[in-house]
């Protein structure tokens, strides 16, 4: 049970002199280039109880914070109002400063005059200045009514949940467990390793990806603090940071180890092999590759037709059984990974011309060839091959056909340039006579050791053709009787805009990265996605691997395109955040929750009906004057501070702490107030 440490809502003790300090931040010009901060400060100084008003280039700096701390200590400031950036950026920074000076952190009011003012009214300096005055005057009016509060401290489960068993999820799980925090890793498919297992060689050092995965998984499997659930999905989520109650539903493995091999051998039903991106078929009892983890074959329940399988004279019908687990996790890592972009029908001839495939398919195709084999496609020799970059990446609105959901992928997928060139180098080594063409916009070999791969390709007789983003190449089937089955047409700017026609036997599309479909997780955890549909970090620099919902962190390509090294870094970074969050065994939540004034409550229960959270407000029995009465009681840990109960209460008996009705009324009065001084100066 969470410990409830919300104090009584102490009204400002009678006779306390309210002394307000008002601080208007220039935000390094972000605000002061539009808002006349000195003027704002001067006008606010005329408001009641305001003892001091100041401006500074950046109050969030150590020197800026020191000014505020000094005022609290030396001028006896006991209410602080800061007009600056959005509270999401630095509200916590200033709460820290106020606390250091010995003041209750909730006697501070943050007013956003950057996002809400200077940034959106940059062409109206006077109007923006007036708005800043009104917003900050409202902040002062509210601050005068603020009372000391304490955060809600809840015990936090020293247990993390990692969703996704690709390399990012594996790395995160291991790094969290190494900090002494138990981890449950949930993977949807029957095997760990994710997309990395489908690669044959990883740049820049050409390591064997499945060996790297094997080493990582061995370490993880040997760690006593990690539980792995494959064929499992999160199906329900309740709770909050420190105490997410998660329901996980797992399919049955369906086969015992002792007859697994025999069953797999006897199985005759086949389906498309997604491990080879549809190039081959596999049995419905399968392993994706030798050495996978877990080693026990899995039953593909989605495709298994339920027919008996005959083994050793026995007929065995396999049965799936869903099992559900409930677990409590203090923090959750979302490592749900990516899918390669799937070109739509006819995009560069894809799924219309049989000789057009994707780069991931080409990687698998080469893996299926034996050493010494000639390169063929559909049994025809491949003499000329073209790789086209930026398929499903760097798309332009109005130029590219939107996807089914109306989106075009504006973003760069980071890995495709190096992956294509890496492929070209490999092809050159294996097939010295092959003619290679790379069609690109910009070569983005940015990483350590990547430029070397580009140089290697340049010196390996790879022919480069450069196209403009709004003039993408065209891939068409060659007329019958042509020497090659496919023609690639491109306006090439390396030859000053010449229209080229390249006859080839095979085209590989360097497809970009798309986030996996995680609508259910997004809804369950109430997290945000960016315009690119990848999961969205809280702030790219202040909190680059954390989501806005506390306790939920991001690892790897669920957040955006990354290469392997970058995914690993992000995954370890996520582990550092989880370790810091759960290391203490407790978390603090802000005290902005509903509070019932029991003397005004008549137990009508409208609030209980209005409440959208489970168990946040309930009616309990009290004895009053010898009679049993019903009164509303808030469980702070379950309350989100939404205020629905406040609106429903007929007696004005409920307030959200630090956002009370009285405070709102004071703010509205202040915003709407006539300012004689203001009018005098500006008219």
């Amino acid at each position, binding site marked *: 049970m969470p410990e409830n440490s919300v104090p009584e809502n102490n009204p400002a003790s009678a006779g306390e002199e309210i002394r307000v300090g008002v601080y208007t931040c220039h*935000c*390094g*010009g*972000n605000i002061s*280039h539009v808002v006349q901060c000195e003027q704002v400060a001067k006008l606010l100084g005329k408001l009641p109880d305001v003892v001091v008003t100041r401006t500074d*280039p*950046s109050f*969030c*700096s*150590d*020197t800026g914070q020191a000014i505020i701390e000094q005022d609290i200590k030396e001028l006896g400031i006991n209410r602080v109002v800061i007009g600056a*950036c959005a509270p999401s950026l*630095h509200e916590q*920074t200033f709460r*820290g*400063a106020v606390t250091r000076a010995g003041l209750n952190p909730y006697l501070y009011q943050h007013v956003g005059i950057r996002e809400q003012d200077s940034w959106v009214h940059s062409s109206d300096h006077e109007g923006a200045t007036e708005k800043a005055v009104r917003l900050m005057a409202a902040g002062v009016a509210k601050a005068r009514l603020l009372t000391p509060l304490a955060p809600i401290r809840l015990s936090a489960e020293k247990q993390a949940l990692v969703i996704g068993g690709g390399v990012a999820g594996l790395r995160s799980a291991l*790094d969290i467990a*190494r*900090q002494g925090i138990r981890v449950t890793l949930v993977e949807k498919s029957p095997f760990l390793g994710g997309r990395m297992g489908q690669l044959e060689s*990883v740049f*820049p*050092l050409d390591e064997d990806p499945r060996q*790297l995965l094997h080493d990582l998984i061995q370490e993880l499997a040997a760690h006593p603090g990690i539980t792995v659930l494959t064929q499992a999905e999160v199906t329900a989520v309740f709770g909050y940071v420190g105490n997410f109650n998660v329901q996980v539903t797992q399919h049955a493995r369906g086969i015992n180890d002792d007859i697994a091999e025999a069953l797999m051998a006897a199985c005759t039903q086949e389906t498309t092999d997604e491990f080879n991106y549809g190039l081959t078929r596999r049995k419905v009892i399968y392993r994706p590759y030798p050495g996978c983890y877990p080693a026990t074959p899995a039953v593909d329940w989605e495709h298994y037709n339920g027919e008996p399988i005959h083994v050793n004279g026995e007929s065995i019908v396999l049965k799936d059984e869903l099992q559900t687990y409930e677990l409590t996790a203090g923090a959750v890592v979302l490592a749900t990974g990516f899918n390669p972009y799937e070109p739509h029908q006819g995009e560069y001839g894809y799924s219309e011309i049989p000789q057009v495939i994707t780069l991931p398919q080409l990687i698998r195709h080469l893996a299926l060839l034996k050493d010494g084999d000639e390169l063929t496609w559909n049994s025809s020799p491949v003499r000329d091959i073209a790789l086209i970059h930026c398929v499903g990446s*760097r798309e332009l609105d109005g130029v590219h056909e939107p996807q089914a959901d109306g989106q075009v992928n*504006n*973003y*760069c997928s*980071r890995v495709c340039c190096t992956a294509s060139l890496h492929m070209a180098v490999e092809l050159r080594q294996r097939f010295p006579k092959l003619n290679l063409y790379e069609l690109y916009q*910009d070569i*983005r070999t*940015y*990483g*350590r050791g*990547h*430029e*070397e791969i580009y*140089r290697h390709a340049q010196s390996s007789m790879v022919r480069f053709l450069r196209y403009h983003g709004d003039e993408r190449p065209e891939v068409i089937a060659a007329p019958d009787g042509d020497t090659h089955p496919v023609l690639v047409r491109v306006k090439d*700017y390396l030859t*000053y*805009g010449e229209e080229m026609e390249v006859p080839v036997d095979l085209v590989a599309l360097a497809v970009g990265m798309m986030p996996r479909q995680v609508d259910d997780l997004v809804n369950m955890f109430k997290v945000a996605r*960016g315009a690119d549909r990848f999961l969205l970090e809280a702030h*790219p*620099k202040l909190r*680059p*691997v954390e989501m806005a919902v506390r306790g939920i962190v991001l690892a790897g390509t669920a957040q*955006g395109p990354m290469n*392997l*090294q*970058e995914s*690993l*870094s*992000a995954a*370890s*970074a996520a*582990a*550092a*955040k989880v*370790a*810091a969050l759960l290391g*203490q065994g407790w978390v603090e939540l802000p005290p902005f929750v509903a509070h019932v004034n029991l003397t005004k409550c008549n137990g009508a229960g409208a609030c209980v009906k209005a409440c959208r959270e489970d168990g946040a407000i309930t009616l309990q029995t009290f004895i009053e004057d010898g009679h049993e009465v019903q009164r509303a009681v808030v469980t702070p840990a379950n309350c989100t501070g939404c205020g629905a109960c406040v609106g429903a209460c007929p007696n004005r008996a409920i307030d959200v702490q630090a956002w009370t009705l009285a405070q709102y009324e004071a703010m509205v009065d202040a915003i709407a107030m006539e300012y004689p001084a203001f009018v005098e100066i500006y008219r």
Partner: protein
Amino acid sequence: MENLQVDALVVGGGIAGMQAALDLADQGFKVVLVEREPSIGGKMITLSKVFPTLDCCSCITTPKMSSVAHHPNIQLLTYCELQSVTEAAEGFRVGVMQKPRYVDASKCTGCRNCEYECPITVPSPFDRGLGAYRAIRVPFSTAVPQAAVLDMENCILCGKCEKICAANAVDFTQQPETFDIHAATLIMASGFELTPLNAKKEYGGGALRNVIDPLMMERFLAPTGPYGRVLRPGDGKEPTSIAYVQCAGSRDTTLGVEYCSRVCCMYAIKQAMLISGALPLAEITIYYMDIRTFGKGYEQFYQNAQAMGVEFVRGKVASIREDAEQNPVVKVELTEESRTVERTHDLVVLSLGMLPATGSNEILGLPLGTDKFIAVPAPNASPCATAQPGVFVAGTAMGPMDIVDSIVTASAAAAAASAYIREHQKEAVYA
């Protein structure tokens, strides 16, 4: 000599070192952060706004500096040089020498009266030599610690600072102080140096007054900068035509720098956008080979710049000369048109790249890559582990990267270091 026993020693107080220290300290580990300069903040604190959000740089950096200064688990040692690193039982012994500030930092209140009194003016490296500061000064307005430092090289020992100082903090007799630090693990966040302006003679950097480096432009654009506006240094004229020469220190075998510096495309585009705001009539041209806007939100940023009218010209700049009015004349091969032209601009910014910082890396003797940055032998298994067990690397010490990537690698290095501490130390110092 002071002895310290900690869980981790972080070398470098730039954004990567600060983040690594904070992540370790937040997990309860005791950390010493060693910084060579008199203030932490690194290169980032000198920047104007940061891509792709255009957040003001101070808004991101200064609160982190403040957190480092106030964190109970972090001890900050500024103005320090590494002297020696040796392997010791359960970790490393690190000798650190703190240079004399000639100011008692524990007494100094940062009031700056010494600075106002000092008669000696010297070019400020913080402002890339575009502005000046005194021989005794608080390094910059948001410096951490807020304590003055006196540079003896320029001081004339007039004693005015000592007289004016109410805290009696000025001390001309201060001696270097040494620290003997026992740390279970080390994180190298020693950062980068910008390619020297004169590295490529054909571009006239250092010789032509209106050919500048990108950090100078950051100072022109920064609200805390020396002029508070964009002026060309040659004659103080407001430039109406500004050009960027991309890959001026990168992807160039003649400079021995084969690698891409990763940030130059984005900072050039960012500065172009900021200049468009400051000088709406200015024409801005970016000469490039490949535009590499690969990060999250970066391609959109590039498209926005194109829509704002920033001119992107694909071409390799051969040389830059000066005309009679000190205007840089750029000779460029237009690689999409098969011709070479000369174009005159008011101001040229060379998009210089990143070189490894020198000094502390040599003390450790860590193996370096062919690019001279600290080698990471298994990037696809342990992306922040150096060749030396127990030593991890964060940020640009392992190669060029932008701020977001530096911060992520710093957190990753902290995770790797904390696991190492728990697994290799019998008893961690952490509470």
